[in-house]
């Protein structure tokens, strides 16, 4: 057998010439400016202000034509003027009422379809065939047909809106229902839930994040479709006779036709405003009251 080598013992020693550790500031108080610029809202607001200033300065200095790019100040004045003397808010309201009725009917139909799909295999087949076929079809492409079938007016727009809402909502809800865990389904069946009650009490809460996503996508398609419909077929669908006024898209269309570009920008601001309000206020509120409160979705 090999001999175990002797353990080497090194003499202990003490290093005496290590200098005192010099550290930089570990925590430094931030200056007031740094603290202000760390605030989220301040940073975002300053970006907005910078964009506005750049726009204003560029349009003043480069001498670009008012018809190509109006000054920001002119746009702001146009927005105020449109709101106060050209019934812009009333036009927005027109658009929104059409949008809401289309959206609501669309959701009802999507609910019926998904309920049928969740309870029977045949329904599920019908839904997946229809959505695979019709979801990629832009709703706006149906507008020419809608105009033919329903004539000029709100009915034709509502028909196209329906089409733009039903498929994304139904598709997402169906996918959500399919991915509800087997455990939860069995719990539901254990409680004796069946048919519509099973869908309402079990599937809908369990698949709510997906459903909400479908609703958001449906809203954004519907909003795009509505603006496009009013814009593209502006004159032909809006009732522009005396006393009546069209929607927001129509306002943009008319302003562009009259070469009042500042008013086009004002209309675009309004579109952004409505979109931001719906997406951040309405849907965020719904999310914070449901899926985030239930802990189904982070943030």
């Amino acid at each position, binding site marked *: 057998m090999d001999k175990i080598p002797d353990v080497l013992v090194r003499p202990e020693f003490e290093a005496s010439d290590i200098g005192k550790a010099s550290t930089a500031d570990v925590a430094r108080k931030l200056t007031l400016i740094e603290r202000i610029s760390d605030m989220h809202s301040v940073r975002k607001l300053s*970006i907005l202000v910078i964009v506005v200033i750049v726009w204003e300065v560029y349009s003043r200095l480069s001498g670009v034509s008012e018809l*190509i790019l109006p000054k920001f100040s002119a746009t702001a004045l146009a927005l105020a003027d449109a709101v106060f003397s050209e019934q812009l808010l009333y036009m927005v309201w027109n658009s929104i009422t059409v949008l809401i009725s289309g959206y609501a009917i669309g959701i009802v139909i999507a609910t019926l379809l998904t309920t049928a799909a969740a309870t029977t295999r045949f329904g599920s*087949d019908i839904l997946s*065939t229809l959505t695979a076929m019709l*979801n*990629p079809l832009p709703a706006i492409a149906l507008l020419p047909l809608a105009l033919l079938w329903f004539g000029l007016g709100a009915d034709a727009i509502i028909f196209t809106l329906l089409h733009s809402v039903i498929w994304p909502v139904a598709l997402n809800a169906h996918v959500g229902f399919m991915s509800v865990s087997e455990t939860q389904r069995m719990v539901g069946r254990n409680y004796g839930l069946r048919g519509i009650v099973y869908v309402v009490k079990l599937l809908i809460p369990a698949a709510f994040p997906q459903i909400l996503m479908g609703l958001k996508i449906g809203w954004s398609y519907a909003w795009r*479709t509505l603006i496009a419909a009013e814009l593209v077929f502006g004159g032909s669908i809006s009732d522009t006779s005396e006393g009546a006024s069209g929607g927001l898209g129509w306002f943009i*269309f008319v302003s562009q036709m009259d070469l009042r570009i500042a008013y086009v920008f004002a209309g675009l601001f309004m579109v952004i405003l409505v979109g*931001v309000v719906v997406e951040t206020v309405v849907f965020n509120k719904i999310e914070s009251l449901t899926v985030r409160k239930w802990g189904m979705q982070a943030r």
Partner: protein
Amino acid sequence: MSTSSNNKKTAIPQLVLRPEFEVSDIEQAQTSEVARKLSTLERIWNIDGVRKFVILLSLVVAWQAYTVGFDVEPLMLPSFWVSFSTLIRDLFYSDLIWKVWFSIKVLLIGYSAGLFLAAVLILWATVSRFGSDFISMATAMFNPLPAIALLPLAMLWFGLGTASLVFVLIHSVLWAVALSTHSGFEGVSQTLRMIGRNYGLKGFGYVWKILVPAALPSILAGMKIGWAFAWRTLIGAELVFGASSGSGGLGWYIFESSQNIDTDGVFAGLFMVILIGFFVENVIFRNIERRTVNRWGMQR
């Protein structure tokens, strides 16, 4: 045993011993069929494709029967057969195929330019906080703005033609992709980021090797949404001014047919739109997903 233990404890009751017994008269269990062979018909009906095909077929038959049986005015609703033969006729004997190609070409240019710009913006956002703030501000503002609403301005700035189509397409792709990629990057777990930094990855390498693969599900979701918006925007835009750019696209074909009250032409155009949309969503994107996020186990 209980007697030897402490007096304060209550006495354990005596165990009752029941006599053992054996049941001798249990009958053999009566089960119904446990597994039954399905008949051929049932087995065929169980194939997914067959059921879907039957549904499609019955829709077509219902359409045809309704139009023929009720003698519907063909200007309002042409029969399936007429629409279908119009599609075949225009596809092979007319210039529909070129119109489709024109649309797809414009779409591809706009889509790739939008993706490129989104990538540049996102890179900027990952390296500087100002860029990140700018992206979240810009997406919050421009994402709810339908691209088609910019069409009047685009026509003014770039004139009638492909350039303004590409401009609105870029707008429709850019914000959707930037938004979901940015939120995907922000959701990449700290562990993965630290691994990347441990390997000494920085700047572009860090984004390409760590952030992009980790956030691929949301990037793909953004690309799909961007595609859907772009497709809708293109058709919408072509419905207005396809003709002015010379040959015109698929949307223009639909518009032209509807103006001529050529309803079977409208349906033929819609068939084509459905076909292309179906192909892109269910073949291209499905395959990309299968090869990446599904294979990597990031998404079912």
